[in-house]
C-alpha cells in the first residue's frame, strides 16, 4: 500500500498536538485549576457555582451570628451592671429598714437609690450605633422616659417585637429582647421597684421599705433569668459558629476537589507532555531530512 509521501503535514500536526498538551499541562500546573471554564467540566463547574453560593451563605450566617453575639454580649454586660445596681439597692433597702435611722439618714439612702435608678436607666436606654438595644424593633426611639402617670414612673416607648437573624439553613435566632419584658416586666419590674424603693425610703415606713426591698430582689432574679437567655443565645451561636466553620472547611474542600488540579497529577501530565514533545521532535529530526536524493548524490 502506498503511504502518504508528505511527512511534513503529519509531523507538523503531531508537533502541534504535543505542544497543545504541553500548554494545557503548564496551564493546569500554574493555575492549579483543572476546571477554569465551564466546558472543561460542565457538571463540576455547575456544582462549583452551587458550592460557592453555599459558601457565601455560610459566610453570611457567620456574620449574622457574630453580629448577634456582639449585641447579646453588649446587652448582657448592660444587664450585669443593672444587677450590680439592684444588688446595691437591696443592701441600701436593708439598711433603710433599720427603724433607728433618722429621716435625714433615710433621705441620703433614698438619694443613693435615686442615683442607682439613674444608672439603670442609662443602661436601659443604651444604644449601639444609634440603635437602642432594649426598644424592641422601634430601635430609633429612647425606650424609657420618665412618666409620672405610669405605674413604674417610666413609660416604655419601644415595642414588644424582636428581630430574627438567619444563622443557618432554616435556623434563625432572636436578635434582641424587648425592653419592656426586661425593665418593666410584671414578674420583676426593675425600674418600678427602684422607684418604689425611693418612695418607700422617703416615706420612712419600714414595712414599705421591706416590701420595696423584696420587689428589687425579685427584679434581680428576673434580670438573672433574662441574662440566662442571652447566655443561651451566645452559647448556641458559638456552637453554630463552630459548625459553620466546619461547613466552610468542607465546602472549600468540595470546591477544591471539583475544580482544582491535584499537583501530583498536573506534574505527571507535564512530564508526559514533555516526553511526548521530545519524542515527536526527535522523530521529526530523523524523518524529515530522509530522501532518496541523500543517497544518490555521489
Amino acid at each position, binding site marked *: *500500500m*502506498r*503511504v*502518504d*509521501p*508528505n511527512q511534513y*503535514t*503529519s509531523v507538523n*500536526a503531531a508537533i502541534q498536538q504535543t505542544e497543545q498538551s504541553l500548554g494545557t499541562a503548564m496551564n493546569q500546573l500554574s493555575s492549579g485549576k483543572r476546571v*477554569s*471554564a*465551564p*466546558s*472543561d*467540566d*460542565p*457538571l463540576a*463547574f*455547575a*456544582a*462549583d*457555582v*452551587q458550592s*460557592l*453560593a453555599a459558601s*457565601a*451563605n455560610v*459566610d*453570611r*450566617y457567620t*456574620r*449574622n451570628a457574630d*453580629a*448577634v453575639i456582639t*449585641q447579646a454580649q453588649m446587652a448582657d454586660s448592660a444587664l450585669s451592671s443593672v444587677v450590680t445596681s439592684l444588688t446595691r439597692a437591696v443592701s441600701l433597702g436593708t439598711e433603710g429598714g433599720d427603724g433607728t435611722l433618722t429621716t435625714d439618714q433615710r433621705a441620703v439612702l433614698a438619694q443613693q437609690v435615686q442615683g442607682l435608678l439613674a444608672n439603670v436607666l442609662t443602661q436601659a436606654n443604651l444604644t449601639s*450605633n*444609634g*440603635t*437602642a438595644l432594649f*426598644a*424592641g*424593633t*422601634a*430601635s*430609633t426611639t429612647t425606650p424609657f422616659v420618665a412618666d409620672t402617670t405610669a405605674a413604674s414612673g417610666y413609660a416604655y416607648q419601644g*415595642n414588644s*417585637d424582636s*428581630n*430574627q*437573624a*438567619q444563622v443557618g*439553613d432554616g435556623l*434563625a435566632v432572636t*436578635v434582641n429582647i424587648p425592653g419592656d419584658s426586661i425593665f418593666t416586666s410584671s414578674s420583676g419590674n426593675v425600674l418600678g421597684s427602684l422607684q418604689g424603693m425611693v418612695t418607700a425610703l422617703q416615706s420612712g415606713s419600714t414595712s414599705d421599705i421591706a416590701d420595696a426591698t423584696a420587689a428589687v430582689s425579685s427584679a434581680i432574679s428576673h434580670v438573672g433569668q433574662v441574662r440566662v437567655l442571652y447566655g443561651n443565645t451566645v452559647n448556641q451561636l458559638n456552637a453554630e459558629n463552630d459548625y459553620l466553620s466546619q461547613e466552610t472547611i468542607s465546602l472549600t474542600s468540595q470546591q477544591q476537589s471539583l475544580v482544582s488540579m491535584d499537583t501530583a497529577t498536573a506534574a505527571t501530565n507535564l512530564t508526559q507532555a514533555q516526553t511526548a514533545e521530545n519524542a515527536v521532535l526527535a522523530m521529526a529530526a530523523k524523518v524529515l531530512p530522509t*530522501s*532518496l*536524493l541523500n543517497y*544518490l548524490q555521489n
Partner: protein
Amino acid sequence: MVGLNSTLTLASGALSADSGALAITNNNIANVNTTGYSRQIVNLSADALDSAGTSQDNGVSFGGFTSVRDAVLQLGIQQKTSDAGSLNAQSALWSQIETGFSSTSSGLGSSLSNLFSAFSGLSTTPGDDAARQSALSSASNLVDAFHQAAATLSSAQTQADAGVSATVAQINQLSKEIAGLDGQLSTLAASGQDGGSAQDGGSIQDQRDTLTAQLAQLTGLSSTSTQSTPSLSTANGSPLVIGQTAFALQVSQGADGKTHIFDSQGQDITASLTGGSLGGALTMRDSSIPQLSTTLDGFASQFAAAMNTAQTTGYDANGSPGQAMFNLPSLSTDGTGAAAGITLALTSTSALAISSDGTAGNSGNVANLLAVQTQALSSGQNPTDTYASFVETIGNGSASVTGNLNATQSALTQLTTQQASESGVSIDEETTNLLRYQQAYTAAAKVISTINSLYTTLMNMSSAA
C-alpha cells in the same frame, strides 16, 4: 522481416515516449508542494499493431498522463470539511460566550450571593445606613451582572451575524471561479487537449477540487456533477454553479435586524443553510445563542418578579409599603430582553423594604427577601440552581462542539492522509522514476547509435567493395 529503418523509428518512438515520461515526472516534482495537486502517472502502452494494422512489436506509444485521484474520498473530505468549518465557527463563538461566564468570583453567580449576603446583614442592623447602602449597591451590581451576561450573548450573536455577508461574498467569488474552471475543462474536453487524455482535466481539475474544498469550508455542499454539466449547490439544494454559470447568493438585512440570505431566485434560504463556517455562524446566531438568551431572560424576569413580590410585602424606612425593587422592560410573555433591560427601581437606601410592620428598626421582611434564594422560581429551580444549570448548559454546549470538532478533525486528517497517500507526490518515487526513464532514454539512444554504427558498417562494406 524487420528492417533497420523500422527499428530506428521504433527507437525514436521510445526516445519521445521516455522524454514525455521525464516531462511528467518533472511536472510531478515541480508540484510536490502544490496544494491540491494530484500526482500524474505516465500512460505508456506497447504498440501491438503498426499503422497498417499488420505488424507486431512496434515499440512503445506515449499516452499522456492520468491524475491519480479518488472521487469518493474527495466527497468524504468535502463533507467533513463542511462539518469542521461549521464546528470551528461555533467553537470560536462558544468559547467567547464561555469566557463571559468563567469567573466564579465575579458575574451573576457571585452577584446573587452578594445580594443575599447584604440583605442578610440587614437582619441584625436594619437601620444601619452603611448596611442599607451595601444592599442597594449589591442590587445594582446584580443588575450590571445581568446586563453583562446579556451583552456577552448579544455580542457573540452580533459577531456571528457580522461574518455572514463577508462569507457569502466569498462563496459567490469561489462559485464564479469554479464556473470559470468548468468552462476551461469543457473546452479542453472538446478539443481533446486535456493533457493527452480525454477524461482527465489534470491540474485544472485539481484547481477546481481545491476551490470546491474552500467552498465546502464556507458552506455545506452537494455536488451532482455529471461529466457534461458539473453542478454544485448548497446542502439544501440552492444552485451555486451549474455547467459554466455561477449563481450568486444575495444578502440583505431582515426585519429582525439579522442578515438574511437569498438564493438566485430571491428565495430566503437563511433557515435551511447548513454546514461550513456560514452554517456554523447561522446555527449559533439563530439557534444556540437565542436559546441561551431565552433562558437568561427568563431567569432575570422571574428573579426580578420574586424580589419585587418580597419587597412589596414589607415596608420601607419611612413606613410606606415597599415598592418594586427592579423594573423590567415592557415584556412579551416570555420575558424577551429582560436580562438586558432590567433596571434597579429603587433609588435610595430608605426605599429598601426591610421592615415587616412599618417600624424602622424591624427587619422582619429580610426573611421574605432571603427566601427568594431558596424558593423555586417558575422555572422550577431556585435562583442559584437556575444560574448553575445555565452555566452548565453553556459548558455542555461548548464542550460538545469542541468534542465534535476534535472528532471531525481527526476524521478529516485521516481522510486527507488517505487522499495524500493516493494522490500525493513522493520525491523518492519521482526520483526513482527519473532514473528509470533516464536509463530507458539512454538505452533507446544506445539503440540508435548502435543502428547508426550498423549503417556505417554497411556503408563501409559497400565502399570497400
